[in-house]
């Protein structure tokens, strides 16, 4: 389809406790929207099973321009990567409504 436009999908997985703070960051950094999913996981910080209070992760997805996505990723890197259980990755996606993202 010719009317597909390239954007960037930024996926963040972090401890659930961080969600309000990172969502505030997303807002401030101009993310046009996001989708959040409660998830479990395993990584350097061990098992995060989510069976009780704050013991789980959340997965945040943001579709936006790649500049913005990289700026957000860099911000997360600077503020959270040292002390918190958090990973993120970027991927190229296509959308129909370029003005929305």
């Amino acid at each position, binding site marked *: 389809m010719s009317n597909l436009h390239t954007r960037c999908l930024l996926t963040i997985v972090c401890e659930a406790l961080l969600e309000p703070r990172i969502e505030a960051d997303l807002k401030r950094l101009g993310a046009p929207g996001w989708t959040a999913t409660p998830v479990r996981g395993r990584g350097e*910080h*061990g098992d995060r*099973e989510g*069976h*009780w*209070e704050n013991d*789980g992760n959340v997965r945040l997805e943001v579709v936006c321009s790649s500049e913005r996505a990289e700026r957000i990723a860099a911000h997360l890197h600077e503020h959270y990567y040292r*002390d918190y259980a958090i990973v993120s990755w970027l991927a190229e996606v296509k959308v129909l409504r370029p003005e929305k993202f």
Partner: protein
Amino acid sequence: MAIDPVVYFFGFGLIAGLLRADLRLPGPVYDALSFLLLLSIGLKGGVELARHGSIELLWQSLAVIGMGILLPILAFPLLRGIGRLGRSDAASIAAHYGSVSVGTFAVAVSWLGSRGIEFEPYMALFVVLLEVPAIIVGILFARGLQHNLDWRDMGRELFLGRSVLLLGGGLVIGALAGGEALAPLEPVFVDAFKGILALFLLEMGLIAAARLGPLREHGLFIVVFAILWPLFSAIIGLLFGLLLGLSPGGVTILATLAASASYIAVPAAMRIAVPSANPSLSLAASLGLTFPFNILFGIPLYAEVAQRLGGG
């Protein structure tokens, strides 16, 4: 007299957890259980508060807050000096042990109840009062009076946290409505209490078992601390209880509160305010060791001593 049956549920969960059996209730159910416990404790306390509240209670409350400030101040140098822990970890653990565990409180109440030992029925108030002070002391130890901590935000976090709010809201509703008006709510908030506590403890057993693993990595000191500190802080609680003229049951509960360590509110607050502290270290101690220790051995011991000393 035999063991309080709710403790069997904890033991069952602990054993199942150590065998890696999957008995976990889904997260939402765990949340609902703890929600109900907090609200029930608050409601009952509020009803009694309205009934027995007096000016004396004000002084008692101030003294209890003082205890909540004193405990982390005593624990911190110990953790730094003998334990050789870093500033953040020592501060975080001091906050955990200066604050309280509502689950431990509930078991103490159940334990006294099943033995028919009376206690001041408004003790739920002390639980609320003890939650927050140690957290503030802990943050100050970790960060000094740094200006880059948003204290307004932190205040929201602390005073609008789930357990403070549910206990506090329950206290207020209980006091406003009174016992008679709340009678139709008793099947859920009173009669079901012990059953819900049993289910909650089963889950806590599973969670505590999962916390025993990491303990090995953290060395002997923290194991010793998680057992000996409660014995020491229980004595402080006992003394406060005696000074405040509480009944032996009341003294037992205050000692239990002093000996207990938070594993819900404080971890969340520390994670935000002192992110460099290792959350698995403090949780392994408070949940993997101190919680089981208090439930299985501590409470009967504190009660024994409180009754010998004949508080009240």
